[in-house]
């Protein structure tokens, strides 16, 4: 954590003449960046909205009046409403234990938390099919008891929880590590109990980092495709989330409808980016404050 103090207050040294590129080189580099971003970031986004309205506003509206679309939206909201709070509680617990204590197996725990970020989402779905699928470990037992996990909502929730659990923990760990525990210890000596310390001391310090993690977790939960596609079974009106609904519409050549649903998710992505940028900026401020407090 030695570096926490070395975070520069001035983010950008103002470039001086001797260390600046010629105007031509500068213009070329900016042009390359603009073209690269236009091709890979802006155009895909523009395409989504353009195609969504390509067959007119009426079809756009009709897409959302369709009961299958509404079911898909409801299921997506339901899954996120279960997965995000679960992973928020987990993220807080994991960050608290990992940044407040030193114990053996800590690195292993951290690696486990990272796992969904480096493993294919399809593998993330696969593992639950192997456990709960018709020919999986508990499959026959579940069939006997008439309870479905795979090709049903519980499987979708499980797969979503798997792909999204790192986000809150990952948003909090660097921040809580940098902030240290002086204030918590002070609260402890003043007689506060664990819950009070968390609620009154820690939570206000980490709220922006927490929001940052939650918002990313939510975006991924609502947009996950690979893992959910493996466990869902694509049953319309029942196990179709918004991304899966987009796939079905697209494969049926209902392009405008597919893009209409996609535009809603694209809007969610833009809102996420906006909140994320703001939360990052606030988190950075909290980190700077932490750095100042550590080394006044």
């Amino acid at each position, binding site marked *: 954590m030695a570096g926490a103090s070395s975070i520069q207050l001035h983010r950008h040294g103002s470039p001086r003449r001797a*260390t600046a590129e010629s105007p031509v080189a500068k213009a070329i580099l900016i042009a390359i960046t603009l073209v690269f971003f236009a091709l890979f970031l802006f155009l895909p986004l523009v395409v989504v909205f353009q195609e969504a309205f390509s067959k007119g506003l009426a079809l756009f509206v009709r897409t959302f009046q369709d009961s299958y679309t509404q079911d898909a939206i409801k299921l997506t909201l339901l899954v996120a409403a279960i997965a995000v709070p679960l992973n928020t509680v987990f993220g807080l*617990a994991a960050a608290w234990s990992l940044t407040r204590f030193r114990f053996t197996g800590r*690195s292993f725990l951290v690696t*486990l938390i990272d796992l969904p970020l480096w493993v294919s*989402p399809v593998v993330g779905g696969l593992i639950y099919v*192997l456990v709960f699928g018709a020919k999986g470990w508990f499959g026959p037992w579940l069939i006997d008891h008439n309870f479905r996990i795979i090709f049903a909502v519980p499987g979708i929730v499980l797969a979503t929880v798997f792909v999204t659990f790192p986000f809150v923990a990952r948003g909090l760990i660097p921040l809580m590590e940098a902030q240290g525990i002086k204030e918590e210890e002070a609260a402890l000596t003043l007689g506060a109990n664990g819950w009070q310390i968390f609620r009154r001391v820690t939570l206000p310090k980490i709220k922006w980092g927490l929001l940052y993690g939650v918002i990313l977790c939510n*975006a991924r939960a609502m947009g996950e495709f690979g893992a959910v596609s493996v466990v869902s079974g694509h049953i319309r009106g029942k196990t179709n989330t918004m991304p899966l609904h987009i796939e079905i519409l697209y494969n049926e050549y209902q392009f405008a409808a597919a893009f209409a649903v996609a535009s809603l*998710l694209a809007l969610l992505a833009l809102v996420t980016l906006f909140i994320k940028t703001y939360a990052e900026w606030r988190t950075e401020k909290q980190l700077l404050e932490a750095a100042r407090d550590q080394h006044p």
Partner: protein
Amino acid sequence: MQERMGCNFVIAVSVSIESLSPHPMTSPSRPRKHALPGLGLTLGYSVVYLSLIVLVPFSALFLKTAAGGWEHFWGTITAPRVVASYWASFGISFFAAVVNGVFGVIAAWVLVRYRFPGRRILDAMVDLPFALPTAVAGIALTALYAPNDWIGTYLKPFGIQVAFTQLGIFVALTFIGLPFVVRTVQPVIQDLALEVEEAAACLGANRWHTFRRVILPTLLPSILTGVTLAYGRAVGEFGSVVFISGNLPFKTEITPLMIISKLEQYDYTGAAAIGFVMLVASFLILIVSNSLQSWHNRRLGIS
């Protein structure tokens, strides 16, 4: 810890692996022996949660793979169609990651060093591939590059077809890996000591020399880390690729799709075998990226 929280998640992920490894206490912010409450509760909860969500299901993957026996395992993972999919996933990902390496460095440089209107929006947009659901990205890129659409129309006269070819997979994987290099390199450029560049200029080096001999060597570990992260992400990518690739057997089928096709035939051991290969590959990429990351940290003088 050097990384600014602001910079982002990717870095946070890899850097904090380092910072959390049991190093000697290096600063006052390290927790000391004390009696803050909650270890039992929070650690217990985390461990139980991870066991249920991760350890038990993954042990099913290992046991299912083992249950199929060696011959079945080897037969499955070396079947010609599966081997062809390795090229699509592992080979094309490499080229996408390298292209991101080149353009990512340029973009990071431009975003840190230059001031121009719209810079902040560009900077925020870098994370779009993280935030945009992969299925949305998939259909959008397909619409862009399909033969008679947007960009596809202009490429057609040159005989270039992107969508439904391996080039399409490349485009999707480049999109998905775009943030990684930019976000790992950005903070390093931000922390470059301008004095060193001044010294190089005083000694008569032109900008290109300074870049080649002074700046690039400093950036190299972070560039390689970013490229590895982008590669790791691209290898497992599914949603954005399946739409644009067209999924032609032996040509544009990716490895995750092979897992799904095995599952559709209820061949669980076959699916587990291919899943196991992907897991091992991802693990190797993780090890490489972690060692690059510690090299990167040593360069920055953090240990």
